[in-house]
């Protein structure tokens, strides 16, 4: 449909496609280093909370091939967390898996063997593994800096008014105006792991006195430089070199600990050190989604107007928080996008407990909050017999509405009305036909019962944070994009080259992109929160436009014209309407390049939207829930890359998305703090034979974003699904299910078929 563009919206092979399908692409662990590379390993705590009374590392140091063994006694005062209170190595360990000692050796096997030769004596401390227990007086305390285990609210990076809650209007008045008020406690605490296939890792090279180069496998490689700079007390000059990232889904936006561990070992040995987590470490000690639990109350009118929301949102961040305050801020913003309501008193509290830390995961606070608020809203909708599709459509932000965003500032939404996309999704899904009312199945066939559900999510972070880019034009008619963006699966590096090609009207093959190295590229926050298309795209487009302008300015005198009378196609500049009056780019001189600069300033007045419809089939004999089909509906303004977009939307299932409502969970033994399924057999994931049908509806209503009128939607694909699944299963079986995931035992318990079986079956 987009004949106005040469590349935008067209199916073009990803520029890295051939490297990917031939195995030629070099992920972090594929990079070859000269012979002096050392391998790092980490000795980890077997206790959830303990003091190290004694460490004897002599045996490990004596092993042939071991080059360094480091403990807290050897570590500098580097700290992470927000605020920075978590030492890189500490005398106190705070979860099962906390770093106790680091080893560098000439091979991984030797490093592994050395770990077993380190003797540690612990004084075991009482541990706390439930956020509400952690808040009680007398609970074990993780940090002196966080009395009562309450993490300091607010994200300094978001500015002085960083959003900490949603408080406005008068909730008591709101509840008084409601036709129905419902309340309850809901949780989304099964800790799904985004679990990219490539484990977190780093290669570090320290040069005295204070220079560090770190090769990373991260989603946002420029930010590694920034994060490490702060963690290392702003005294170290860090260069971060990114490469292809084998999946992240938010989680590998930051890997400060593994990067610091490699850096410390390099600092101790003077040699480059590679440290890559095993898959067990990835599951047991790397960051996972924050756990949420909320006691809340909502008021609703018969017409589906929400009059008040109040509640306490308890977020378990595990043993530290680096970004949980940011997730709370964005989650609080996103809930206002989903729910137009004048009266709020929603108060989050972030708690630390003795399990591995929470970090960034696709959905970023908003998925968590929706997963616990939509089930409560559903109770009100049931009482008032309101169709949830109509409710979600009515209450989603409309042009002219507003919200407090993460910086605590009120923004008025100036994007499109998503009702049209939602309607198209509902039609394709046949919602009207399938929706039978609350707690009523769509279909009953013998022991099988089908049900439907719907969810929605929107994010104003599509314009978050700053991006910068250069575009350099060469006399041979090629262009090079300088951007520190890394490729983590969305195809965006390729898409940014597409944007450059479109602005400059040169074949895609003539555009290249620099390695994502902080030394050569300007500031780049990285692809996150669906910001790639609008935020990074805007910087790239402006850089290309700036370079093009410089080209036309330079060549105008040669063509005896003004720059605005000129155009350029395929490396030739010509007079508009008189193509014979032309000069090639090489007329700039073979000894010249032209560099354009582009910068994007944050803009929170646009939001994306994803509505997901799901249909499930429940086997009432076995309790198994099968996801039959999914329809995702959105409006992307303008599709840039049809196949890449399809991939992103299909991604709704995995990476801690829809499947976190069906079977994905990290199981922690709450008495010992050990994770019981830290391997890929016991941690459940969806396989090829179990794919539901997915249909994606993507409208293209131009946005006032950049010259292509597009907005990003990748990140949000996972977020509407989980609560929709809970809704669908409840409707199928005719009784409420409120716990994630809906495992067979929970379904059978809801049906009264376990225990003494008093209820004897579905209603």
């Amino acid at each position, binding site marked *: 449909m987009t004949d106005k563009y040469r590349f935008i919206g067209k199916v073009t*092979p990803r520029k890295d496609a051939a490297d990917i399908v031939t*195995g*030629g692409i070099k*992920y972090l662990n594929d990079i070859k280093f000269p012979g002096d590379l050392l391998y790092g390993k980490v000795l980890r705590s077997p206790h959830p909370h303990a003091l190290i009374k004694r460490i004897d590392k002599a045996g490990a140091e004596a092993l042939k091939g071991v080059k360094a063994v480091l403990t807290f006694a050897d570590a500098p005062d580097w700290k992470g967390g927000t605020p920075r209170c978590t030492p890189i190595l500490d005398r106190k360990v705070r979860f099962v898996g906390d770093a106790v000692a680091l080893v560098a050796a000439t091979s991984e096997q030797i490093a592994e063997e050395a770990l077993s030769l380190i003797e540690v004596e612990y004084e075991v401390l009482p541990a706390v593994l439930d956020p509400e227990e952690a808040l009680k007086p007398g609970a074990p305390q993780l940090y002196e800096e966080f009395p009562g285990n309450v993490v300091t609210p607010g994200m300094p990076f978001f500015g002085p008014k960083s959003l900490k809650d949603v408080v406005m209007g008068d909730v008591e008045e709101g509840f008084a105006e409601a036709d129905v008020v419902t309340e309850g406690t809901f949780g989304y605490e099964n800790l799904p792991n985004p679990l990219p296939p490539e484990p977190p890792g780093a290669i570090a090279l320290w040069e005295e006195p204070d220079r560090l180069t770190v090769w990373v496998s991260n989603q946002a490689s420029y930010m590694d430089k920034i994060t490490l700079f702060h963690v290392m007390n702003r005294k170290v000059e860090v260069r971060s070199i990114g490469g292809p990232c084998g999946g992240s889904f938010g989680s590998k936006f930051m890997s400060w600990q593994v990067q610091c561990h490699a850096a410390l070992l390099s600092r101790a040995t003077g040699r480059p050190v590679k440290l890559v987590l095993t898959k067990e470490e990835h599951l047991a000690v790397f960051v996972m989604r924050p756990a949420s639990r909320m006691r809340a109350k909502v008021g609703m009118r018969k017409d589906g107007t929400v009059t008040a929301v109040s509640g306490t949102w308890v977020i378990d961040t595990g043993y530290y928080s680096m970004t949980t305050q940011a997730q709370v801020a964005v989650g609080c913003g996103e809930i206002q996008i989903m729910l137009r309501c004048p009266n709020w008193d929603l108060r989050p509290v972030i708690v630390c407990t003795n399990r591995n830390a929470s970090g960034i995961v696709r959905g970023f606070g908003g998925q968590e909050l929706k997963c616990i608020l939509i089930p409560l809203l559903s109770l009100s909708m049931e009482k008032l017999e309101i169709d949830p599709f109509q409710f979600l459509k009515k209450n989603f932000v409309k042009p002219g509405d507003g919200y407090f965003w993460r910086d605590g500032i009120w923004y008025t939404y100036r994007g499109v009305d998503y009702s049209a996309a939602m309607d198209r999704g509902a039609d394709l899904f046949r919602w009207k036909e399938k929706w039978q009312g609350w707690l009523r199945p769509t279909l009953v066939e013998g022991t099988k019962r089908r049900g439907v559900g719907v969810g929605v999510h929107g994010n104003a972070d599509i314009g978050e944070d700053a991006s910068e880019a250069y575009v350099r034009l060469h006399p041979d008619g090629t262009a090079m994009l300088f951007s520190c963006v890394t490729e983590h699966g969305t195809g965006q590096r390729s898409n940014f080259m597409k944007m450059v090609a479109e602005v400059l009207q040169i074949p895609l093959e003539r555009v290249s992109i620099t390695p994502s190295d902080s030394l050569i590229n300007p500031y780049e926050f990285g692809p996150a929160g669906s910001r790639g298309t609008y935020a990074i795209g805007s910087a790239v487009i402006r850089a290309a436009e700036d370079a093009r302008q410089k080209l036309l300015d330079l060549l105008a005198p040669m063509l005896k014209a003004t720059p605005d009378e000129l155009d350029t196609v395929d490396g030739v500049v010509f007079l508009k309407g008189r193509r014979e009056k032309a000069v090639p780019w090489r007329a700039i001189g073979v000894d010249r390049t032209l560099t354009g600069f582009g910068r994007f300033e944050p803009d929170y007045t646009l939001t994306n939207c994803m509505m997901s419809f799901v249909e499930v089939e429940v086997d009432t004999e076995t309790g198994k829930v099968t996801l039959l089909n999914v329809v995702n509906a959105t409006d992307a303004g303008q599709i840039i890359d049809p196949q890449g977009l*399809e991939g992103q939307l299909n991604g709704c299932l995995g990476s801690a998305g829809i499947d976190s409502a069906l079977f994905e969970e990290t199981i922690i033994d709450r008495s010992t703090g050990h994770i019981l399924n830290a*391997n*890929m057999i016991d941690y459940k994931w969806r396989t*090829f034979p179990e794919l539901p049908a997915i249909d994606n509806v993507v409208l293209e209503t131009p946005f006032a974003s950049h010259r292509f009128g597009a907005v990003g939607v990748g990140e949000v694909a996972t977020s509407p699904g989980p609560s929709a699944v809970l809704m669908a299963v409840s409707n199928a079986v005719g009784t409420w299910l409120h716990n994630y995931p809906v495992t067979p035992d929970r379904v059978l318990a809801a049906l009264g078929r376990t225990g003494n079986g008093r209820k004897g079956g579905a209603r």
Partner: protein
Amino acid sequence: MAKKPEKQKKKRAPGTDRIALTVDGRTYDLPVGGEAGQVDPAHTLAHTLRETLGLTGTKVSCDSGACGCCTVLMDGKAMLSCMMLTVECAGKEITTIEGLGDAETGSLDPLQQSFVDHTAFQCGFCTPGIIMSAKALLMENASPTAEEVKEALSGNFCRCISHYQVVKAVLAASAKAR
């Protein structure tokens, strides 16, 4: 594909400290032992491919046989290279993702080309394993159904959810091959 058990004379003589195997058409005769550059009896085939032979196209994710990322062809069958010891691979013919295309012309295997055409990957880390599993299927069954493709790939983990585009790519490659 029928197995060929005869001729497999156990030539794992304990006295000989070398192991010969063919990888991507090239025969290697590697010393067995604990030193750098040697094949340690504890080394998996995945380790030997990546660390000893430098063939990093084969990926290791879980390293315990659960995810399929390290899949290679061994005598035409899909095998998890992280679950095989290299010393067990004497005389075997191994094909990795790097040996799938035409080494002479540099052209892609039609299956690889189909993955390019369908953007049947996102982060790409699981892609080599998926392509090798699909290749093994197509060698055994030139025109599989969608269900057969899914079954053949049931051991391959992909987190980005490239599954739908993968199935299309494999089916397209099989139709073209006919």
